[in-house]
């Protein structure tokens, strides 16, 4: 007995280590043989979508595609998902692209290398020549013969980079934001089923929930929130509140007011930070934020979801991207409902500015997949994306994860998703006053202070006005200079394309097409630059 004990105490540790090492070596060799086998083509696809169901939905498409390719060509293809959390995605993509070890297909976002046009041009494959051709997987369907980009609901407008003049990504889904609510708790507190339809009603419901929580001594708040939720409310309310200001300052009648246009608007006295519409927006958002729980500014997006699932809040604003996660989390606890953001069209003060909701007709496709320029199998990457974006593929993917499809003709059959259908009526018009970095930073910083009730709308307006007066002129000139440099870059690109056309005759057709595109775009950019320069000089001379 004692001999065995001695043996155990002496050699068991070493034995475990040896076994563990053997296991590790076998696993590593097995993985290498599986994924790096010489007869297998491995593609890697990275994304930050860690929502429930996403990986499974993508994997289902991958599995189908691997089979299809094998049957069609006999080639063994393996596509590996590389899911990276949002927190680390930027570093992962940046180091991967710089180190030539980035995946073949990359979800575009977060990292500068994947968003800044100069880096995008360097690291990613332009897809223009592919998206104008039909998707071969659509043969025999109603989309046969239709250019690939035209098979998307938005004609891939969101994927077109206006600076690079090409298409750089392929979307899989689209998203809208709504308010989810706990129907059981809502019914218990308000004694009714119907969600609030007007702003007054919404505020009344919030007040009743607060009162209920206080009376019952339970920590129940109306709206579960984090900064992400604060952002959703800002996004949904600013456009309808500011649309009249946007129209007022809009000089080129495109429905939006850029920082150049708002600058002239300010100089011509069309608006100021004390304009009633701006003050009213801040007041309205403060009112809404007063229904958030204590400490919401420090909470993360998943903390807010957790509070909602825990029945500590009756409602939560979130996107359709969270639908499946929220359904999964709450299906055993309570009945879930969804409604749109109630607009203050019935409010005595706010209704002067808000006439309806912001329109979602301009929604663009999301989950943007780009192709790494250095991939040795760009053809296969494109083929995979084409396979995924047939009507059948897109339906399969989005049905599985309960997201909105982006391919034309794919029906939204899931009842739960119908509440997320884009609102096609309503108002549009962006009003951008971020003429300088200082204004932009102050605005972003003050936003949370206002929502937290630590600053009034007037105080914010005073600060922003002072900053705008101090920095707008230099900011305008900097932005103008940026525009000039864009012109110069574009001219360089034109020169390069002309040279390429002359030197490589087989590229002549493609270069001609690019040159026509470039000339149209450069005319637009040149035109804007000279107009804004001229207007600025005129204004300066007049003063």
């Amino acid at each position, binding site marked *: 007995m004692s001999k065995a004990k001695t043996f155990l105490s002496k050699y*068991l*540790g*070493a034995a*475990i*280590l040896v076994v*563990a*090492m053997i*296991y*590790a*070596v076998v*696993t*590593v060799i097995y*993985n290498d043989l*599986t*994924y790096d086998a010489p007869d297998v083509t491995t593609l*890697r696809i990275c994304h930050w979508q*860690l*929502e*429930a169901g996403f990986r499974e939905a993508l994997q289902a498409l991958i599995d189908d595609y691997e089979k299809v390719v094998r049957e069609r060509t006999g080639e063994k293809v393996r596509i*590996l*998902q*590389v*899911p*990276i*959390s*949002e*927190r*680390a995605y930027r*570093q*992962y993509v940046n*180091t*991967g692209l710089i*180190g*030539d*070890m*980035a*995946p073949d297909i990359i979800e575009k976002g977060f990292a500068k290398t994947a968003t800044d046009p100069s880096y995008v041009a360097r690291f990613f494959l332009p897809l223009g020549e592919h998206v104008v051709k039909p998707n071969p997987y659509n043969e025999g369907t109603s989309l046969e013969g239709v250019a690939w980009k035209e098979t998307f609901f938005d004609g891939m407008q969101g994927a077109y980079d206006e600076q690079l003049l090409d298409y750089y990504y392929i979307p899989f889904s689209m998203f809208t934001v709504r308010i989810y609510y706990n129907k059981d708790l809502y019914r218990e507190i308000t004694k009714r089923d119907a969600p609030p339809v007007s702003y007054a009603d919404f505020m009344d419901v919030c007040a009743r929930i607060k009162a209920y929580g206080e009376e019952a001594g339970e920590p129940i708040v109306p709206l579960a929130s984090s900064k992400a939720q604060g952002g959703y409310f800002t996004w949904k309310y600013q456009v309808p509140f500011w649309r009249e200001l946007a129209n007022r300052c809009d000089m080129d009648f495109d429905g939006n007011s850029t920082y150049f246009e708002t600058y002239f608007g300010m100089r011509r006295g069309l608006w100021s930070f004390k304009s009633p519409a701006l003050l009213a927006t801040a007041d309205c958002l403060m009112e809404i934020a007063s229904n958030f729980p204590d400490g919401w500014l420090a909470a993360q*997006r*998943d903390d807010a*979801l*957790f509070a909602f*699932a*825990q029945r500590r809040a009756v409602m939560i604003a979130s996107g359709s991207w*969270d639908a499946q*996660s*929220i359904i*999964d*989390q709450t299906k*055993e*606890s309570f009945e879930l409902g969804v409604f749109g953001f109630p607009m203050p069209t019935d409010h005595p003060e706010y209704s002067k500015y808000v006439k309806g909701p912001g329109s979602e007709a301009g929604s663009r496709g999301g989950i943007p997949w780009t192709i790494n320029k250095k991939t040795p199998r760009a053809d296969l990457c494109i083929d995979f994306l084409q396979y995924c974006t047939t009507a059948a593929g897109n339906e399969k993917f989005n049905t599985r994860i309960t997201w909105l499809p982006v391919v034309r003709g794919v029906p939204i059959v899931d009842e739960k998703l119908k509440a997320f259908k884009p609102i096609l009526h309503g108002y549009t018009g962006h009003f951008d006053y971020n003429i300088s970095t200082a204004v932009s930073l102050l605005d972003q910083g003050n936003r949370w202070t206002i929502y937290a009730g630590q600053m009034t709308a007037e105080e914010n307006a005073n600060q922003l006005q002072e900053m705008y007066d101090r920095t707008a002129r230099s900011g305008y000139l900097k932005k103008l200079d940026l525009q000039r440099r864009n012109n110069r870059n574009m001219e360089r690109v034109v020169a390069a394309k002309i040279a390429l056309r002359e030197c490589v005759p087989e590229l002549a057709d493609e270069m001609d097409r690019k040159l026509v595109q470039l000339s149209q775009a450069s005319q637009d950019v040149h035109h804007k630059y000279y107009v804004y320069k001229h207007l600025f000089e005129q204004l300066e001379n007049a003063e």
Partner: protein
Amino acid sequence: MQKTKTSHEVAKHALILFVLVFAFLPLYVMLVISLKDNTQFIRSPMLPTLPFHWENWVKGWELCGRYIANSILVATLSVIGTLVTALLSAYVFARYHFPGRTILWYLLLALLFMPGVMNIVPLFLIMKNLNMLNSLWGLSVLYAVGGQVFCCFVLRNFIEEIPVDLFEAAMVDGASPFQQIVNIVIPMSGSILATLAILRFLGAWNNFIQPMIFISDEYKQLIPVGLMRLDGEYVKQWGEMMAGYSIAAIPLVLIFLFTMRLFVKGLTAGAVKG
């Protein structure tokens, strides 16, 4: 007198229990949550609830098993690499006098004061040029190199403490320097080598930034990055995540269980002079 002694004992035990409760609370919470689904976790995060969800451990193993294998391989190879190279260089510094020895030693020591993060960019470029990015072998070499200075520093002092007479006797018997290391240094430095091995293993096991930057393939990734990815889920599956954490902790617990004696001995070696 007896009463005072008893009350001292009670106080001592109470203090130890108090410390132990705090030390084991995270472990307890991790284990309890690893057996819950999200609904149970939401309703009662701290207390055990029925039924136990053992399938979380299966899922946890599915999520972490591959990372653990990679981590074991990299950590073990790096420990072997570090100890072999550090032992050889420490032996040279301890036993031989050669021109520039002091300067070389201080230059080596200066590396101890360099924060690791500072080296990331040059390391990345070197690894890229050596075609060692995204390779477990490359990462093992990197870890082995990273641990050399500290190990060399500790081992040199230890070897210097070994009586010179032993080496001289061995030399008289015709032992080569390598035989001296094998027959004198290693047997007499067992505890300190074990301590350094454990410290290096821990360092390699817990290193986050380097696998994050140098490894891009999911199937080659190491456990800290794998766990961070679990934690990055928008709606976390707490049970599976905690099962994964528990599984990831098992190798370290085992190592401590079987090497605790050597570890404590190594830590206290040289604490008492003479």
